[in-house]
């Protein structure tokens, strides 16, 4: 399914940080929504800010408009405040994008496990995120850092336990 761009994406002023406070508020909300949808659609979990600036989201070549670095950082700060983004370094060059929160991922994973009557089985992290069995699941391809956080969220709920094995981490579901 191809990505559906919101109407703002084709509206040239969308790429200019609006001077009017109320309009800017709406603009930033729309940018946050667009950035998250785009990452979700393309299963992006980390962003490099320099690369992001050149990606179709922030650089709309067809209408010859791009969001300035200053504006991108403002959008990212909004996402951070909402809990959807985490900087990986002090210089703010790379970040984690959480278009789904760890708790939400945990829930999805647990649903799959119980649906397939695999409670009480032990999985390696690799099996869970990259195994053949989970290929059609949304959490397939989930990056390790997010997977671990999701499982930790389940652990807090008493639904799983993260265990250390010889060659890495695994998880048992209850």
């Amino acid at each position, binding site marked *: 399914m191809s990505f559906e761009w*919101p*109407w703002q994406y*084709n*509206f*040239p*002023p*969308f*790429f*200019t940080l*609006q*001077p*009017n406070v*109320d*309009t800017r508020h*709406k*603009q930033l*909300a*729309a940018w946050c*929504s667009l950035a998250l949808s785009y990452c979700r659609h393309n299963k992006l979990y980390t962003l490099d800010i320099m690369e992001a600036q050149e990606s179709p989201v922030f650089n709309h070549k067809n209408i*010859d*408009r*791009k969001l300035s670095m200053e504006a991108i950082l403002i959008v990212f700060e909004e996402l951070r405040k909402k809990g959807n983004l985490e900087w990986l370094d002090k210089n703010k060059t790379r970040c984690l994008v959480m278009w789904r929160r760890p708790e939400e991922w945990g829930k999805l994973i647990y649903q799959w496990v119980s649906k397939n009557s695999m409670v009480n089985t032990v999985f390696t992290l690799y099996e869970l995120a990259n195994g053949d069995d989970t290929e059609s699941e949304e959490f397939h391809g989930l990056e390790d850092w997010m997977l671990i956080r999701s499982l930790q969220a389940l652990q807090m709920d008493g639904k799983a336990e993260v265990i250390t094995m010889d060659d890495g981490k695994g998880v048992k579901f209850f």
Partner: protein
Amino acid sequence: MHRRGVGAGAIAKKKLTEARYKERGTVLAEDQIVQMSKQLETFKSNLEEFASKHKQEIRKSSQFRVQFQEMCATIGVDPLASGKGFWSEMLGVGDFYYELGVQIIEVCLALKHRNGGLITLDELHHRVLKGRGKFAQDVSQDDLVRAIKKLKVMGNGFGMIPVGGSYLVQSVPAELNMDHTVVLQLAEKKGYVSVSEIRESLKWERERACHVLDHLLKEGLAWLDSQASGEPQYWLPALFSELTSRDVTPEEANQISP
């Protein structure tokens, strides 16, 4: 004192009254009055018959409504003048426009966060029809204009700005004076306008042009595009043609403040 006979006095009085009426040139004989009242009765029952025959048509056909309105205008009647009364109750004309007014308000409210409270009549028409569904009554742009005029009279902050052969419908009481209106009309062609364009077309001073554009930004009717080649452009979401058929997304709906 010996009183005069009643008869003599009454006759004298009558003669005096008649003389006075003749003076003024208006003589309404009693039988004429009876005649008129009979005619009014006939007129009223004809009207009632007309109403029951055409009530359905009024609700169904926008063309019939236009002709009906024009006929009313010729005889000096405004069917929408009051909520109650013959037209409203017998024909349901008032109901039709009242309901339409409510629909118009709903559409404008739903889109206000996008376009700042300004919408083209075309887009409004398109969305009202969409909201009514396939099997609902036909609604014409004439109907919309009349309903909006009613809303305006009731003080709902509605206004209509003529642009490019049609109208922009304003649904928020943003203060728009003649200068603002004229710039909106200029922007209608391309959906955006710049300071130079305003100065060229309207022969204004730079300050006057900037003042108007700043006001439009402030009212949330225009957005600034500073990446346009040459000079900044001011775009109006209300005139952005790509927007007209896009539904309000769930995210947008969440942004709508009551």
